[in-house]
């Protein structure tokens, strides 16, 4: 296998050079609360050569992040390396003391952490945080380090670096903060940069720019990059080699073309199959499900749309003293209609107003102007009893199944809560309905007595869906329902949503930033940008043949679509 990789490795990577990182038979265990040791990484071998970009791919719990952190000796509490060797630039670092590791971290290996919004010290100026690396490793004194920090910020692609250096993290956008963290990672000129899901918290267009920049930076400097990602598209776009991890074991490795083009391991195949892409069509419920419950699956018969927004506008007052206009326009003249039995997807990046639009549809916000119609009835100013009656008709599933279920409730209590709130049925009838709903979302009946904490993310999201369906609503608002989930789980949940829609004739308002996911479920798509609906139409039209520049940019930024000269000679860059 090694032979094959070396033959196909890009020209820049010197196959004979000493690997920057060499991991052999790595074993990492976490001590669990009951005194057991959980083996998170089991005998992983990994090599990263100078100038090479290696992607470590896997789902949550695969041990990819743990492997990467072991290379910096930065394991979470309770974790320890229990076996194997780690070599950095040929030097065995497996037995270094904590103090010796301090000289290695930052200097020989830089880390770009996962979530830029929380990975910078909120009370320090960003320039000082970059300069600190130089000071720690004795590369510069404070004043000199500050000056060099500005240069580093510039190299990391921060515009107006001198002014930015004096700002605090909260004054920068997520993308800029990630650039600051990249500056931190490259500050001391390490030979290896470990990037742990560096962009999964960012919008696609920002993600693409950051990854482009990071890649150029490491390639220009001849630095090696170990890229940890759950996103095969990102790996496909960026990596020379891909290593696939499952349950702490390497199941496949090879060049990006090999692994993605001709996967040998079933897990890799499953990952590739589960990853949504625009090339796939909309999911259709299969089997005799639609007739099973005798629910109506006939749209079109009803004239009035389930939800109609007419030229809605939402302004939020700005805090006094803030720069700019007195109010912030979050949603600006949005009109859309969602017909019964169909899915309308609202896509956009953070700050585009998609969540506010969803909240307007759910009557959690009142529009500043415009009308909201529900089943043909104007409900714009509904309050009190009227609103309460209306609320029965629309339910919501939130993004994080970890935060949206009360941990003190059992699953049955979670699902039955809307029924209790509206006084539906007797206790026995409600229990029966809970059983029915659990079966609907394909959870075992005995899940009812368990706590949400005992369930996986995907199972929890099924519970949240069951809860949303309890009152047989006319409209279900799905606010990024799969973006917190692994791809394979994501695919299962999307299948479930489509099946439930066919069985019960459900109407969905689907909020997402992920166009590939939208492609799988949406009939109609609306693209939001700065509070305006820049384009809307059928899913096919919008996603496959976008008219507006902004939509084109969004589509182009989807990972896994970048044409890439994989064997480009060094001079080309």
């Amino acid at each position, binding site marked *: 296998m090694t032979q094959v990789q070396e033959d196909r490795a890009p020209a820049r990577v010197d196959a004979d050079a000493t690997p920057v990182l060499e991991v052999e038979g790595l074993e990492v265990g976490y001590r669990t609360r009951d005194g057991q040791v959980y083996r998170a990484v089991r005998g992983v071998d990994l090599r990263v050569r100078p100038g090479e970009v290696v992607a470590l791919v896997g789902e949550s719990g695969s041990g990819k992040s743990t492997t990467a952190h072991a290379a*910096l000796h930065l394991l979470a509490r309770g974790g320890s390396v229990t076996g194997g060797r780690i070599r950095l630039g040929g030097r065995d670092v497996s037995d270094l003391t904590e103090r010796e590791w301090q000289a290695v971290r*930052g200097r020989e290996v830089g*880390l770009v*952490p996962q979530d830029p919004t929380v990975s910078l010290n909120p*009370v320090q100026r960003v320039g000082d945080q970059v300069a600190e690396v130089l000071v720690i490793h004795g590369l510069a004194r404070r004043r000199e380090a500050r000056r060099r920090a500005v240069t580093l910020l510039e190299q990391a692609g921060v515009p107006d670096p001198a002014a930015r250096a004096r700002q605090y993290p909260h004054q920068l956008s997520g993308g800029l903060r990630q650039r600051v963290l990249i500056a931190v990672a490259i500050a001391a000129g390490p030979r290896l940069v470990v990037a742990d899901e560096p962009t999964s918290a960012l919008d696609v267009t920002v993600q693409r720019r950051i990854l482009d920049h990071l890649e150029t930076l490491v390639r220009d400097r001849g630095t090696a990059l170990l890229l940890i990602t759950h996103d095969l598209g990102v790996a496909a776009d960026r990596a020379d080699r891909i290593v696939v991890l499952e349950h702490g074991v390497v199941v496949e490795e090879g060049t990006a073309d090999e692994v993605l083009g001709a996967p040998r391991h079933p897990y890799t195949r499953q990952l590739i199959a589960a990853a949504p892409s625009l090339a796939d069509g909309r999911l259709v419920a299969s089997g005799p499900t639609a007739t099973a419950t005798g629910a109506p699956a006939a749209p079109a018969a009803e004239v009035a749309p389930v939800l109609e927004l007419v030229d809605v506008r939402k302004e*939020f007052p*700005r*805090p006094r003293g803030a720069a700019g206009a007195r109010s912030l326009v979050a949603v600006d003249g949005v009109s859309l209609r969602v017909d019964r039995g169909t899915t309308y997807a609202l896509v956009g990046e953070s*700050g585009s107003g998609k969540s506010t639009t969803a909240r307007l549809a759910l009557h959690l916000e009142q529009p500043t102007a415009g009308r909201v119609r529900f089943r043909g009835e104007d409900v714009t100013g509904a309050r009190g009893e009227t609103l309460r009656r209306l609320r029965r008709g629309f339910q919501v599933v939130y993004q994080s199944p970890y935060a949206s279920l009360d941990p003190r409730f059992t699953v049955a209590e979670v699902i039955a809560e809307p029924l209790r709130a509206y006084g539906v049925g007797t206790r026995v009838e409600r229990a029966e309905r809970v059983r029915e709903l659990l079966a609907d979302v394909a959870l075992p009946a005995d899940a009812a007595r368990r706590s949400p904490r005992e369930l996986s993310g995907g199972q929890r999201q099924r519970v949240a869906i069951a809860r949303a369906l309890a009152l047989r609503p006319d409209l279900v608002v799905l606010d990024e329902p799969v973006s917190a989930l692994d791809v394979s789980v994501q695919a299962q949940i999307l299948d479930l949503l489509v099946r439930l829609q066919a069985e019960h004739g459900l109407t969905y308002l689907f909020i997402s930033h992920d166009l590939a996911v939208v492609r799988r479920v949406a009939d109609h798509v609306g693209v939001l940008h700065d509070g305006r609906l820049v384009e809307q139409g059928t899913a096919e039209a919008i996603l496959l043949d976008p008219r507006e520049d902004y939509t084109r940019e969004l589509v182009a930024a989807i990972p896994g679509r970048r044409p890439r000269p994989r064997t480009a000679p060094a001079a080309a860059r």
Partner: protein
Amino acid sequence: MARYVARRAAQGLFVLWAAFTIAFFVLYLLPSDPAALAAGSGGEVASVDPALLDDLRARYGLDRPVLVQYADALGGAVRLDFGPSYQSGAPAGSLVAQALPQTLLLTGVALALAVLGGTALAVASVLPRSRWLRQVLSALPPVGVALPTFFIGLVLLQWLSFRAGLLPAIGNAGWQSLVLPAVTLAIPPGAQLAQVLSRSLRGTLGEPYVETARAKGAGRLRVQLGHALRNAAIPAFTMLGVLVGGLLGGAVVTETVFSRVGLGRLTVQSVNTQDVPVVLAVVALSALVFVVTTLVVDLLYPLLDPRIERAPTRKAVAA
């Protein structure tokens, strides 16, 4: 900024007025008769010459309707004139002013001890590598919180003064006499501070930016003092405002235990003898201290945490 301070000052004035008013009416409603207490009869009306009582009541204006007395007292308080003490006849304001320096000294030293000791203990409870040592050190603050001030005072007196004879037990003479009361007064707030701060520190050490700092190659001290402590100090700082107010209350007990002259002692005496003007002056002063410390704490926040800006009162809505 100026508008913010003005608004807060207006709120502070309201707090002062409310504290004064409530104190006035509570004192008025107490069953015993201040005139009888002033006459030295232990509050028994029957045993005093009625003419003397009438004379005293007239002298202090106690024979007028309650609202008139209130308006008079409030008007005087605004001019910092709280009227003569029923007991000594000296102006209540100057009695308080005389007692104040000793108490300020005591509470000031105690506050410094509490902040320094509390911070040191909190840092010490997360810094050592030894898990055992960390656990022992984190168990200390709850003990300090649980002990009542008078008990700490008595134990310290017993050990350090009566047995070892190291420090004087009572009085206001010299710095030696300040040590025991200041330590006694500092322990409960210091322990509370340590508890909040060490909990906050432990939480902060799990934050992703701490991992970023470690990934830079920062050592333990740099991570904990340079990155974690300032972030962890924010909730502890909030508590500081409340603790300063609590120190005044603690001074009452401490000054009594150590027989020190000061505001605490004056308060106890005045309450016992229902010396309304003096009590009102003390209440107004405590309320003022409270208002000022909270305002100062709030104004200092932005220095500690740049995310807190002064002008906006509502969080910006990021849509």
